[in-house]
């Protein structure tokens, strides 16, 4: 597979390490009253879609950036690649 890195252009997926669903960015608040349940769902439960999947890849053999890649799990077509840090900030993390 080839991942079109937003800063570096197309790179072989072999340079990357895969983590999983991009929802892993959304780490719950430890002081939430349902923190135990929320952390359980956060860590263990997946949508696991057959189709568009937003997922985390780490450019380990490159610029060490974490990326959010939107990829179809049926065809492997990649339609979007973003820097995970930007996604995290846009999603409200770090506020």
């Amino acid at each position: 597979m080839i991942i079109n890195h937003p800063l570096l252009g197309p790179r072989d997926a072999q340079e990357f390490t895969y983590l999983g669903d991009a929802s892993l960015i959304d780490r719950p608040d430890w002081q939430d009253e349902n923190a135990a349940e929320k952390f359980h769902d956060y860590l263990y439960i997946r949508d696991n879609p057959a189709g568009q999947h937003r997922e985390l890849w780490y450019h380990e053999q490159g610029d060490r950036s974490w990326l959010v890649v939107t990829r179809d799990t049926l065809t492997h077509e990649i339609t979007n690649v973003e820097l995970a840090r930007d996604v995290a900030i846009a999603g409200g993390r770090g506020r």
Partner: protein
Amino acid sequence: MSEYTLTAQPALGGYQETFEGVSLEEQTGLAIVSIATPIGGEDALVKALKDGYGAALPKTGEVSLSKDGQTRFLGMARDQMFAIFDHTEPDAVDIVGGKLKDVAYLTSQSDNWVGLRLSGSKSRDVLERICPLDLEPSRFAEGKVARTSMEHMGVIILPDGADSFLLITASSSAASFLHAVETSIQNVVG
């Protein structure tokens, strides 16, 4: 005062060989300093680079040069670049620090890496066996830099001439990397 002094050893013993169509040479005395941008500190760094070096902040994957041509800034990541220049002592980080003051986070990387220069008309054919990147001259020429993996080893590669590449690889596995390049040479031109 200790009666002993320490002597520096080049990781590959100052390796240098010439083959038909390529030569391969360890770049001893290559100083490397990592420069990381603090959050919100990009403007200050841009200014310090300009003041200290007459250089621009490189984009990721690109190289900018100091005004005196002696220091290259490799854009390694969005918030990190490597300054590389010839300097044999291990105090490169202080030299860069002297120029940039405290606008960035500096880390010595000189001893983390070993530089190898591969040059000659066959150098692309040699790299073709181990490097996944497209090295075609119109796509990857001087001014570009990339970090990738060759034979399971991380490598920073930058063209520094028409048929010349600087290959920067981790010092602990440098012997294995040298072996990989030598094997390519042997398989292609040897």
